[in-house]
């Protein structure tokens, strides 16, 4: 037997060297392999589904693009086939799009919230925090390792999502293939692209970790994460995102269809005439005879604006041009990274001071 009743070794009271960080890799893997496997299966299943519905879509798009002459009825048929392909995933509000929007919070809530909440709920923190590794280093190593892995997985998955949507934004799209039913602005899928998507996974995970440490119970922490995340998504999409860069304002009636239009108003003689769309009475007064654009094709705001312009109205449009798409992605990714770092710091602070 080893005799441990040795006299205090020289330097015994000196600070003990911290254990190397890499030791947490195996610990984290063993403890969270089920959660990580679950995330892998979930994203894997979604990837297979995207591939299955994406390949016919790409084929139909390629066929329609290659068709000559474009005005022939055969080509129109191919265009129609392409546009009819997709009724599940056409936009963020379709069932498929909604599911994809929910992926980050599902991963964040179910992988992030239990990390600390389960330790608190089952009492295993009393084991973990009294080992030589030290409790705040233990928590930091775990959270950072998991955050990096989940964010990377999200980034890989978002590449596939972008591949799926690519026909809708392809520069080679023919004029005849105007996607009337779809919004063609790249901002429409903003959340699902390569920067924003993994960033939202990261933020969901760190919200989950902090909620778990605050609430100390798994299920309430998951619910709190879902609620907090939904609030952040709504606030970001509804209030914050449009202000990342100062919107452009134009009086041109030909705002590109790919722009993200934030607001429209019209002036006459230097004074505000109306905000948004003109009233029906105004249209009837000036434009009842109807220039081109009215009639059997129905009502076009563009045509109305042209008509009103002839009567001295100036239409103003504030918008974010499509060219700002990537700067916006990086701005969103940037503040989310910063906020995630703050949330992790707050979590570690709680771990350090938490009394039992």
């Amino acid at each position, binding site marked *: 037997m*080893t*005799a*441990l009743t040795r006299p205090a070794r020289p330097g015994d009271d000196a600070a003990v060297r911290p254990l190397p960080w890499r030791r947490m890799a195996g610990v984290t893997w063993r403890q969270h392999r089920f959660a990580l496997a679950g995330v892998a299966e979930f994203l894997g299943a979604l990837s297979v589904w995207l591939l299955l519905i994406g390949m016919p879509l790409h084929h139909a798009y390629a066929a329609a693009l290659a068709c000559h002459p474009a005005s022939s009825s055969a080509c129109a048929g191919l265009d129609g086939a392409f546009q009819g392909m997709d009724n599940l995933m056409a936009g963020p509000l379709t069932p498929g799009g909604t599911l994809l929007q929910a992926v980050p919070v599902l991963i964040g809530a179910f992988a992030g919230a239990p990390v600390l909440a389960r330790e608190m709920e*089952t*009492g295993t923190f009393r084991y973990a925090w*009294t080992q*030589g590794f030290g409790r705040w280093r233990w928590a930091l190593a775990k959270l950072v390792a998991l955050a990096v892995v989940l964010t990377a997985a999200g980034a890989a998955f978002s590449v596939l999502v972008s591949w799926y949507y690519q026909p809708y934004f392809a520069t080679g799209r023919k004029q005849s293939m105007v996607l009337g039913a779809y919004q063609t602005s790249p901002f429409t899928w903003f959340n699902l692209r390569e920067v924003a998507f993994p960033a939202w996974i990261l933020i969901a995970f760190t919200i989950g970790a902090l909620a778990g440490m605050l609430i100390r119970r798994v299920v309430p922490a998951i619910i709190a994460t879902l609620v907090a995340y939904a609030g952040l998504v709504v606030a970001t999409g509804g209030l914050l995102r449009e202000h990342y860069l100062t919107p452009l304002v134009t009086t041109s009636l030909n705002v590109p269809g790919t722009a993200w239009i934030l607001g429209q108003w019209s002036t006459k003689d230097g004074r505000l005439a109306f905000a948004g769309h003109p009233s029906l009475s105004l249209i009837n007064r000036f434009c009842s005879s109807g220039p081109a654009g009215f009639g059997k094709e129905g009502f076009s705001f563009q045509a109305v604006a042209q008509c009103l312009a002839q009567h001295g109205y100036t239409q103003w449009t504030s918008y974010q041009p499509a060219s700002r798409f990537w700067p916006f992605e990086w701005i969103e990714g940037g503040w989310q990274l910063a906020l995630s770092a703050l949330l992790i710091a707050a979590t570690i602070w709680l771990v350090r001071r938490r*009394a*039992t």
Partner: protein
Amino acid sequence: MNVVEASGLGKRYGGTWALRECTLAIPAGRVAALVGPNGAGKSTLLNLAVGLSAPSEGVVTVLGGRAAGSPAALDQIAFVAQDTPLYKNLSVADMIYVTRSLNWRFDQPYAQARLDELGIPVKRRAGKLSGGQQAQLALTLALARRPRLLVLDEPVAMLDPVARHDFMATVLASAAADGVSVLLSSHVLAELERVADYLVLLSRGQVRLAGAVDDLLTTHGRASLEDLAMAYLRETTPEVTR
């Protein structure tokens, strides 16, 4: 050297003091029993000593003046908490791996040999072990760290008599063979009779009595530790007598 030294130590939860004005010095090389009724502040004192919680007032140091919960203290203290928390979904082998990874010292051959001796299969998940086996696993992991101080919070409360006996035998064997100082809390007095040679009696968050068991018995003219403890608890805890 004292393994635990407290001075004016207190811990308040909300408006209630769980421990108050606690001053004591537990010498090294002992099996010290922390005794008192439920709610006396035993777990609070142990949590403070291992650094899981921070004092509301006063100071507690361990192993000759190291701050409780500091890296130097954690390196040499092994703690088995109440109800022996383990990661229930990890296998025994994984628990060994995790404990080895989180500490500088880990005596793998010792852990292996003890688990073999106990008949605990390393591939089984910790949650599938019996209560006695879980307690033994937690104790084995703690002892394999080769600590200088072993702290046990109500280690046998949930165990049947046989498991209780086996557990205590292991603790005593390491105390004797490896010179590990032991601090354990219990409200089961009979269990401590055979093992403890140092006593700290707590009630209502205050230290009532502390000292070597032999000295205390002589001074107070009592035949057994149980007698002594009961006498003190009756004096200081009226509700026990009624």
